[in-house]
């Protein structure tokens, strides 16, 4: 247990801690769930504490100086006053330089520790930023084991993840505060970073670089789960979508294929395989829809399909005027895509 972190957890007043740290998986840069975020969190506590100390000392100087000055009847002139002040100012600047140097050294050390975190047999995930959602691909030498999903990244706990980011349109920034710092997703540049989740949990992430109308609603989830649970999830996701079970789902699939959905979305196992929009093969297995904007329930799914512009104005998905029975059947089908 790093002494500073213990100090940090204990000494900061509970209110600030509650507000900033939060408990469980509340999204916060000082509530680390992996080694990378932990190193940065320790650095954060160090910077905060030394910074506050320096601030209070300088304010103390100022208050003392003003009070001392106001008590004077006439100002301190002459060489000895100047020599005294020169000593104090020189000392203060010296201390400032010293603190800056130690901060610099600690910062470089943390920086290097963060950088050499790569590991040859890490799980590689390629995330592609689109205007206002995330496309996630699990990279594997065997093409049959390459999985494409969207907006939710399942990772095995305790295993290093190598993240490659790229963009199809504008600059985004992939940031899950509980796991690691952000990495900019720049078109024409292949950004990469590496992290590891030590605690299972659902960690929120956001796009951190302004990327247009719906930048505010471009979230994602990183779901860390034990190794075997992840393997089971991965196998399930690899399989194509099951054929529709009953008549309602059959009609729902018919509505899905006849309307404009296949023009943008892909559902493996049907003839819909366009890469323009997110992959919906296992939509029902996801916790949220529309890049972390809505929980994945039947009501929200219906509201989203009918008029996405009301929820994410400016999103590329058009409104879909459907009759009641068509909508009912479509929702039935979509919720069957486990």
């Amino acid at each position, binding site marked *: 247990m790093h002494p500073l972190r213990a100090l940090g957890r204990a000494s900061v007043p509970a209110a600030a801690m509650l507000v900033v740290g939060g408990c469980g998986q509340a999204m916060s840069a000082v509530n680390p769930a992996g080694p990378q975020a932990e190193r940065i969190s320790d650095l954060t506590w160090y910077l905060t504490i030394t910074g506050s100390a320096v601030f209070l000392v300088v304010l103390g100087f100022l208050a003392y100086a003003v009070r001392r000055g106001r008590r004077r009847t006439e100002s301190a002139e002459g060489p000895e006053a100047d020599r005294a002040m020169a000593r104090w100012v020189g000392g203060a600047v010296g201390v400032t330089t010293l603190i800056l140097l130690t901060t610099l050294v600690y910062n470089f050390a943390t920086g290097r520790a963060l950088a050499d975190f790569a590991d040859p047999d890490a799980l590689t995930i390629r995330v592609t930023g689109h205007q206002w959602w995330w496309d996630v691909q699990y990279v594997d030498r065997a093409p049959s084991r390459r999985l494409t999903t969207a907006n939710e990244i399942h990772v095995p706990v305790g295993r290093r993840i190598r993240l490659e980011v790229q963009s199809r349109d*504008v600059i985004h920034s992939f940031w899950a505060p509980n796991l690691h710092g*952000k990495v*900019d997703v720049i078109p024409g*540049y292949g950004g990469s970073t590496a992290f590891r989740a030590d605690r299972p949990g659902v960690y929120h992430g956001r796009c951190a670089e*302004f990327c247009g109308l719906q930048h505010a609603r471009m979230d994602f989830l990183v779901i860390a789960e034990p190794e075997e649970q992840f393997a089971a999830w991965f196998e399930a996701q690899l399989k194509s979508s099951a054929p529709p079970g009953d008549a309602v789902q059959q009609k729902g699939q018919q509505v899905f294929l006849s309307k404009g959905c296949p023009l943008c979305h892909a559902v493996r196992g049907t003839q819909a395989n366009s890469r323009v929009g997110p992959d919906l093969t296992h939509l029902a297995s996801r916790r949220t829809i529309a890049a972390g904007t809505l929980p994945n329930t039947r009501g929200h799914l219906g509201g989203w399909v009918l008029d996405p512009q009301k929820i994410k104005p400016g999103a590329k998905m058009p409104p879909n005027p459907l009759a009641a029975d068509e909508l009912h059947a479509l929702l039935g089908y979509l919720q069957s895509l486990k």
Partner: protein
Amino acid sequence: MSATTGEQAGAGLLDAAGRAELERTWAARPGLWGWLTSTDHKSVATRYVATAFLFFLLGGLEAMVMRVQLARPENGLVDPDRYAQLFTMHGTTMMFLFGVPVQLAVATYLVPLMVGTRNVAFPRLNAFGFWTYLIGGLLLYGGFVLNTGPDAGWFSYVPLSGPQYSPGKRVDVWAQTVTFTEIAALVAAVEMIVTILKQRAPGMSLNRMPLYVWAVLVTSFVVLFAMPSVALASMMLAFDRLVGTHFFNPAEGGDPLLWQHLFWFFGHPEVYIMFIPATGFVSEIIPVFARRKMFGHTALVLSLVATGFLAFGLWVHHMFTTGLPQLGQSFFTAASMMIAIPNGVQIFCWIATLWAGRPRFATPLLFVLGFVFLFVLGGITGVMVASIPFDQQAHDTHFIVAHLHYVQLGGFVFPLFGAFYFWFPKVTGRMLSETLGRWNFWLFFAGVNVTFFPLHFLGLMGMTRRVYTYHPETGWGALNLLATVGAFMIAASVLVFLANVFRSLRSGAVAGDDPWGAHTLEWETPSPPPPYNFLHIPIVQGLYALWERTADRPVVTGMITHRREILLTTVLDAEPDVRYQHPGPSIAPLLAALAVGVTFIGGIFTTWAFVVGPVLLFPALMLWMWKQSPPAEPLTESEQPA
């Protein structure tokens, strides 16, 4: 032929007739035509500061709407498109239309008075600078009113601001506004450098120059080398959008990071362009209200120069998360932390002067003390984000919004308000009320802290910048509501300031020449100063001109009064060198600015404007250079026909 020091009593001193002729020669023409053609640095500077302050209010209104929209989750006050325009307009207005212009405008008012000369070096260029700036401001707000305000952020990262992802003319309006404001800043910087180096009163050698004049000199050099970078970047972006060049198109060899390098190479020095003159204000206000000479004058000058140089070595700390090589970024971490040392020197020297002096709590000193509090806090969060790992968490979040507002509001707007209270009597001849001043200060100080301190926590909790709304379950609602309350406090304090100004313009106490007992030359002139500033150019006898003035301090005589003339002195020791013909008022700067306006605004719609504009510009420039003041009196040596 050098200046002869005459001992005979009163030889060459101007009598009443001489003063009247001087008044006539230097006065602007009457009425609106006089106002449009005026080249008096005080007249141009007051309208410049007033316009910049108007944009400050507009920027503040935009901020208020944003704060109300963020006051609670899922708020529906503005839709995402309007919110994108709002935060872009707020950033662009505060940085390009208020920040840099107001500092250079105050400089063009004060520097000629402080160095003891009659006008700024190139007065017509000064007027041209203001008109260009005004056209830039009108273009931006004209666009905003016509639903064509920029919506890609105040630094408009490519490719979002590129031709494909920003359809229409919105980003073009932004790019041309940047071009206008940067022409105005460059012009003002050149004037300030030449005025300070060549037109100081005899005796004001470099080591006797006031600290504010040093600050303006350093700022002008920073402007000289920073503004071309954004001029080039906005020109390249405009060409990318209008004629299809590929400077920033990643698919055809262009590079989005080229934009970021060029923009931030200007971006960071720009915030120092606003901060360095503010340290100049503080260094002028503290000696006067601590009633003691400033401790460590040379140390402060050296730290000013050091800040000016270091400002150009930090820009990559805006790009720590773009994945540039680690070694390169570490250099910029070290440079970003090193700049805290000269700032530290300044702050410790100010505190020492307060300790050694006898400070009295007038409003200017209150704003200076508030500045120290806020700027030290902002500086420390600055050192925090200078470290790469922490910046990876804090970059583009509300932590940065908190940091930048602490160093901008604390570091630049507080000293600016202190300067308003300090020099308002000199500009208008009337004192501002101290009680309203205190209300203004304490509301502002509390407002800044209540608004921006919570944003530190919001940033670490994941609230990114430029989000028009957020989910209720993020838990950010409470802190955002608190910040919005703080924003209303700031608005209230600005209203108190406006009330104070208008009340004192009407019925404020009459301020004499020197209400504060200050030491710089402008306090020797009447309030408000006459068009010619000094009846006789003073001879400076020490660093603290008025405090170290001997009873029989000599003045300069022998300058003609029937035509505008200024005294040029040598650069280092300010010995009288040349009597220089000074151009009179002219309408040409306005016409030239309009021609430049036609060129760049037309350039948004058709490339032909870049041909028609210059054709219009040349006659305006001809009028500018040829129109001489009428030779009513006998021609002096320089006016003999060639």
